[in-house]
């Protein structure tokens, strides 16, 4: 198994990965994004083999450091790392020295000292991975920070879209839900705009940004609107975000009932999108809230595919970052 999947696929573009960390998608170039997608295609092929495992990252240690609960992101990274032959250490805030008050900086330095090459980190504070990355020589992959960014989710979403649409250039993607507090929406906006898609961010006024509209020079256009029924018309991709029930208690929405009336993706609304539009959700879903169960499991749903693609995309990122650090 000396052949690395990336070599099998090749990139052709000549772009190489030079980043120590992946903190967000905002600074990724079109070429870097293409490199991730191409590498992920090779990884998807690996995942389809009878023995879905290579030894490319043998001797590499990957730590998952999760300060916040997660099912799919942590599991997805663990499977991705193990599929590449890396050793994996899993740490959560509870049950580690974090509970004794160890600082983030000391924690990542400790992980580095025991020989960790890549730290996949999820934190409830926006910007925490940036702090960590500045204070460790280990690579940091942001697995979601507060209400800021979730770059690997955005890249797996993009991978899923591209695998169906060929390219997202000139396509229209509607993201609906709690945009203001969504790390998924923000990171998706950066990759999609960079690749020339038009992005509509949609939700009730209290859950939308008031001042900030993502902008990528030479990229697609981003609009922000409260009118979902108009926004979904002709959309090529509809992405619903998880609506947290506590938003109602905090007075941000009057009730889930009213939210559903205005913003739930259901069969009636999905009909107004482009024929065969892709329905996506980063999970975990509140079925019956942001999505009606029939569309969540319907023909247009790509939700399970997103999860499967997540492993391939995370393999690609681990490979690109770890191979770089060993070069």
């Amino acid at each position, binding site marked *: 198994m000396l052949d690395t999947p990336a070599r099998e696929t090749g990139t052709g573009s000549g772009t190489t990965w030079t980043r120590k960390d992946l903190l967000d998608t905002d*600074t990724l170039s079109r070429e870097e994004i293409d490199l991730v997608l191409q590498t992920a295609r090779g990884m998807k092929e690996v995942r389809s083999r009878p023995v879905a495992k290579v030894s490319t990252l043998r001797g590499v240690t990957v730590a998952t450091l999760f300060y916040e609960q997660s099912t799919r992101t942590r599991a997805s990274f663990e499977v991705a790392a193990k599929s590449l032959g890396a050793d994996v250490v899993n740490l959560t805030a509870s049950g580690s020295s974090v509970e004794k008050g160890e600082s*983030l900086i000391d924690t990542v330095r400790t992980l580095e000292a025991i020989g960790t090459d890549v730290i996949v980190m999820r*934190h409830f504070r*926006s*910007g925490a991975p940036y*702090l960590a990355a500045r204070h460790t020589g280990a690579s940091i992959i942001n697995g979601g920070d507060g209400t800021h960014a979730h770059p690997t989710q955005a890249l797996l979403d993009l991978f899923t879209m591209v695998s169906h649409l060929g390219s997202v250039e000139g396509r229209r993607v509607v993201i609906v839900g709690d945009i203001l507090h969504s*790390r998924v929406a923000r990171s998706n906006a950066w990759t999609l705009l960079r690749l020339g898609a038009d992005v509509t961010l949609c939700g009730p006024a209290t859950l939308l940004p008031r001042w900030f509209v993502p902008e990528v020079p030479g990229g697609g256009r981003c609009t922000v609107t409260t009118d979902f029924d108009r926004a979904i018309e002709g959309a090529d991709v509809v992405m619903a975000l998880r609506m947290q029930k506590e938003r109602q208690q905090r007075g941000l929405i009057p009730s889930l009932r009213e939210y559903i009336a205005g913003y739930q993706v259901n069969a009636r609304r999905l009909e107004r999108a482009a024929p065969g539009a892709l329905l996506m959700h980063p999970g975990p879903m509140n079925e019956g809230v942001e999505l009606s169960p029939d569309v969540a499991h319907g023909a247009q749903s790509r939700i399970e595919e997103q999860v499967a693609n997540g492993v391939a995309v995370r393999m690609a990122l681990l490979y690109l970052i770890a191979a770089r650090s060993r070069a």
Partner: protein
Amino acid sequence: MNDILLIRGGRVLDPAAGLDAVLDVLVADGVVAAIGPALDAAGARVLDAGGCIVAPGFVDLHAHLREPGFEQKGTIATETEAALRGGFTTVCAMPNTRPAPDCGPVLESILDLLRRHARVRVFPIGCVTRERAGKELAELAELAAGGVVAFSDDGSPVSDPRLMRNALALAGTLGLPLSEHCDTPEMHTNGAMNEGAVSERLGLPGQPAAAEATAVARNIELAAATGARLHIAHVTTARAVELVAEAKARGLPVTCEVTPSHLFLTEAAVAGNGQEPAYDTNAKINPPLRTEADRRALLRGLEAGVIDAIATDHAPHAVEDKLVEFEDAAFGISCFESAAGTVFTLAARGELRIERAIAALTSGPAACFGLAERSPGVGRLEPGVSRDVVVIDPAAEWVVDPTGWVSKGKNTPLGGHRLTGAVRAVIIDGTLRWEREGASV
């Protein structure tokens, strides 16, 4: 060692006296002895102030000396030494110490520490409420008798409107101003920076500008209802400046201050200049750095005299208080040793008239808290009375390097910034107490 000192040929600026001319200043017998052209003093040490500005010692209405209780962040000795080097010869100390001065005995113990360790003149500010908790009033009359120059709960706004009304009524009868941090915390969830494009970009909880304006408006109405003197601490928004202007036009005894940080920086400092967002905890301050439109409104308000004073809100912190996730980091900027530099840089850029800057650092703040009644000549250069003088070189270029500061707080977002204008010499009680290295005498 009350030597005779002749400060020769500087531009002497005493806004209170309407004085702005190239003159000599003679310092002798612990006071400014004479101001005039071509003064002669046999045996006097001569400080050549050609090209420099000679002004009254600066007066700061808002500083955190951290002692007692937070000596790891700063002590009275270190922070007043930093004040001295920043040109501040008179400092009003905020009461967020542990214990906080909410009654006579605590105040007396703090005054005792100040007598022993302070390197500049320090006036204490007393609490509005017991332990600054916003529940019960502090013993205001006892604090007034003990010598506080104002009341404030510092960074903890008095939220309860009835308690605030009563506090103002009592402060009014005592003749003392109440300095209030104007925020409406109920309007946001632990806002860590200004609510706006940058907070939305970085995914950080923001403080809306309306949270400041709402509190300013409420407190002005309560001041009007009670007749008390209200001082708005560190205004940061355009709307707050308008509200203060309106209150002044009504003839209400309302004053306000602005910090050098809010005059010089915007919310953009949190994100930094790099390609990736910096989440710079050294730019985390409460109230937060606002927008460029707000910054310009603050400069206009200062120019127009709506804003009376430039106050540092000097807030030193230990390294570990800032080396954490942004939302968990302490609020505050260590400001004493960069304040004059930032203000004179604004003057050098043409954003602020130097005469106005000097007034807002001297006579303006002295008048807000009536400090000349307690220490004659404070904020002025009155021959025979005033005791403190600062000499500024408005053309001196320097780069901010907090590692060399005497303040224990190295927490500044200005590290590496090039500034124009530096404090060159500081005289307190008629004695040359500090001189900038490399300045020739």
